[in-house]
């Protein structure tokens, strides 16, 4: 009927490649696995494009706009009569859009990695994990029920773990991967409990039932309450906790900067474009429930997003590791998306934020992947991560330079670049709902422009740093993905998102609100200007600024000491005051009791053995006492 059954191959191809490379990859030449991986992904990519074309453009949307299609569904595990985990494929505007995002970025990263990972040990392992990740991420976005999403959510987490820890002999990479997994796992706990609560209240896992405006989730919203909020709202907040963990929202963000220990293509794919937006996607997927049954939860989303975007932007201004700057920038941008979702409501023009969020997700995926890949090319050329050891690379790396500049302009929100359009929609949505958050976002926009151009000027302009050998432009296998992504970054702003991806599937009339857009562009330009003044030429200005705002600078440089707080809680509190005492308690109290019982029995038997001494007189004593006692007893009984 619908003819989308082939979409299952979009998922299966990466999975098969994962199994194949994981088991037999080391039998072939390294290059082979890269080519196999990329070729497989190319097929997936083409299939995704076809799907998108057929879904959006091959037929005009009906009365209800773009409706969801179940392309495939099979029961995977039957839990109760109503609750069953299915493996299904749900196609609706956002999942189709995500298919495009994931396969595009993943394909670019695959191709790029062929060059970037050349000569690394474990080449085939890298590609098999990349395929695993792609598979899991695709499974996540097409999930037809919330438990399926959780399953792939966990798989995404583990592939991220495996890829961050790719250089497993480097202790920092091992620590970072562990941290990433445990922090997100902790967040997933919230997600899981949220699912449990939700399924208990609504009796279903199915997304279509859950998000149906007339479905049980919405109609039960007025049910039982807990601490003043309805149970549904609580479950949504818990679900958002999962999303916040994956999307590195404050205070669960600490893993993301450390995750930059992974190979750069991984950072581009997982920690910039796809996995970290899973949280946004999750909220978007559940959006009708949030908007119709859990406005307080949506406010939580908005404020967490807004705060994170500001918080991360401030930190990004002071970091020196270029990948970390990009990581904080990612956090900040995801905060934008969360905020946009938070200020959106269901249906019609109220849903502008939803559309804006998805739009920004799309453009951000492209330009942030581009930024990371450029950073990878730079690191590849100069073998350092620190921007104070770089400078003047413009002449050596012309292609990287241009593409990086394009990406920076995009993220700064300069008109005609994609970022401008998507950011403008977000600001407009915020303007209509929450002025306070709107002004926060203005500040963030300025900071974004500032730190991105600080990065740009430090790397490509400024004084010529001393290099051990002359930096060389990356091979074509790496630069072609850069150029392609740059093209997308420039032009994706013209995709008519407002008619494709909306909260209720219907067409939405939007236009650029110049009253919002012009100041934001001016702020961005101002940010760029400040950055240019401070970093274009070598000057003492940055130093002076740092010493003027010394406290802010130090706090920001140390990421507001959040890591230390966590370290304190885990190392000092959990390990020292919970785990060690538990271990001690088990050995000495519980086991001690058991051993104590054994000891009592043994010593009692020693004593009993002592009675059996062979000492006639002792026996006699006992005998006589016994006799006397018996007599006493009889006397007492008789009288």
């Amino acid at each position, binding site marked *: 009927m619908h003819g989308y059954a082939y979409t299952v191959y979009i998922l299966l191809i990466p999975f098969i490649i994962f199994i194949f490379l994981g088991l037999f990859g080391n039998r072939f030449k390294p290059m082979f696995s890269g080519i196999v991986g990329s070729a497989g992904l190319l097929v997936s990519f083409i299939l995704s494009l076809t799907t998108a074309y057929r879904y959006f453009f091959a037929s005009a949307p009906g009365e209800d706009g773009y409706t969801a299609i179940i392309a495939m569904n099979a029961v995977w595990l039957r839990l109760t009569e109503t609750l069953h985990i299915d493996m299904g494929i749900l196609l609706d505007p956002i999942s189709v859009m995500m298919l495009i995002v994931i396969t595009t970025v993943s394909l670019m990263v695959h191709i790029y990695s062929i060059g970037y990972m050349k000569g690394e040990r474990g080449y085939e392992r890298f590609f098999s994990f990349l395929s695993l990740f792609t598979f899991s991420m695709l499974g996540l976005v097409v999930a037809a029920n919330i438990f399926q999403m959780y399953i792939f959510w966990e798989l995404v987490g583990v592939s991220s773990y495996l890829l961050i820890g790719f250089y497993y002999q480097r202790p920092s990479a091992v620590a970072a991967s562990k941290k990433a997994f445990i922090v997100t796992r902790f967040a997933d706990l919230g997600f899981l409990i949220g699912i449990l609560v939700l399924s208990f209240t609504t009796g279903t896992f199915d997304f279509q039932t859950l998000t149906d405006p007339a479905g049980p989730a919405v109609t039960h919203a007025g049910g039982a309450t807990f601490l003043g909020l309805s149970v549904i709202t609580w479950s949504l907040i818990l679900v958002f906790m999962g999303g916040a963990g994956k999307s590195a929202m404050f205070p669960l963000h600490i893993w993301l900067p450390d995750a930059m220990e992974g190979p750069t293509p991984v950072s581009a794919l997982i920690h910039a474009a796809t996995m970290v937006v899973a949280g946004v996607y999750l909220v978007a997927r559940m959006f009708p429930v949030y908007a119709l049954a859990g406005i307080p939860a949506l406010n939580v989303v908005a404020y967490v997003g807004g705060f994170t975007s500001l918080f991360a932007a401030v930190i990004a201004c002071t970091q020196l590791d270029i990948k970390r700057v990009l990581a904080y920038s990612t956090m900040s941008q995801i905060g934008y998306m969360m905020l946009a979702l938070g200020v959106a409501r269901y249906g019609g023009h109220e849903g502008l934020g939803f559309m804006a969020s998805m739009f920004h997700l799309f453009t951000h995926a492209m330009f942030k992947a581009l930024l990371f890949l450029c950073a990878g090319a730079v690191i590849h050329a100069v073998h350092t991560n620190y921007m104070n050891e770089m400078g003047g690379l413009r002449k050596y790396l012309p292609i990287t330079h241009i593409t990086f500049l394009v990406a920076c302009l995009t993220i700064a929100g300069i008109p005609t670049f994609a970022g401008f359009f998507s950011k403008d929609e977000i600001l407009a949505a915020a303007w209509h709902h929450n002025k306070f958050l709107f002004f926060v976002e203005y500040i963030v926009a300025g900071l974004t422009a500032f730190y991105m151009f600080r990065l740009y000027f430090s790397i490509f302009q400024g004084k010529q740093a001393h290099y051990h050998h002359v930096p060389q432009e990356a091979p074509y296998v790496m630069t072609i993905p850069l150029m392609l992504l740059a093209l997308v970054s420039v032009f994706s702003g013209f995709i008519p998102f407002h008619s494709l991806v909306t909260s209720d599937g219907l067409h939405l009339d939007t236009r650029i609100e110049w009253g919002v857009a012009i100041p934001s562009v001016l702020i961005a330009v101002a940010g760029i200007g400040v950055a240019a003044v401070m970093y274009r030429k070598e000057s003492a200005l940055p130093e002076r600024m740092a010493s003027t705002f010394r406290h802010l600078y130090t706090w920001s440089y140390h990421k507001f000491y959040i890591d230390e707080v966590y370290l304190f809680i885990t190392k000092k509190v959990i390990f020292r005051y919970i785990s060690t005492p538990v271990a001690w308690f088990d050995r000495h109290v519980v086991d001690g009791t058991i051993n104590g019982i054994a000891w009592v029995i043994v010593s009692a038997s020693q004593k009993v053995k002592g009675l059996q001494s*062979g000492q006639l007189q002792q026996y006699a004593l006992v005998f006589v006492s016994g006799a006397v006692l018996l007599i006493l007893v009889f006397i007492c009984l008789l009288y």
Partner: protein
Amino acid sequence: MHQGIPLHYFLIVSTLMFFIGIFGFLTRRNLITILMSIELILNSVNINFVVFNRYLFPHKLQGHFFSMIVIAIAAAEAAVAIAIIINIYRNFRSIEVGKVDEMKH
């Protein structure tokens, strides 16, 4: 000759003697003194038999004969016990009960 003496008086004497004997049996460590304590016990029992015979059943001689038999057995017991004690002394050079513990191990 026993007129005017209540039965109880004899019984008190024999009881006290009996328990003194038991006390000796329990506390002495020397085999011979233990033996002597046993003689005390037997003696007190004899008194009881005889006294009951005289006071309560004067038409019979059972208590009397019982005492005689007890005396005879006491003599036999003493003879055997002393034979054993002498043998123990030969083997252990001691007649302390605490030291005669070869069978224990």
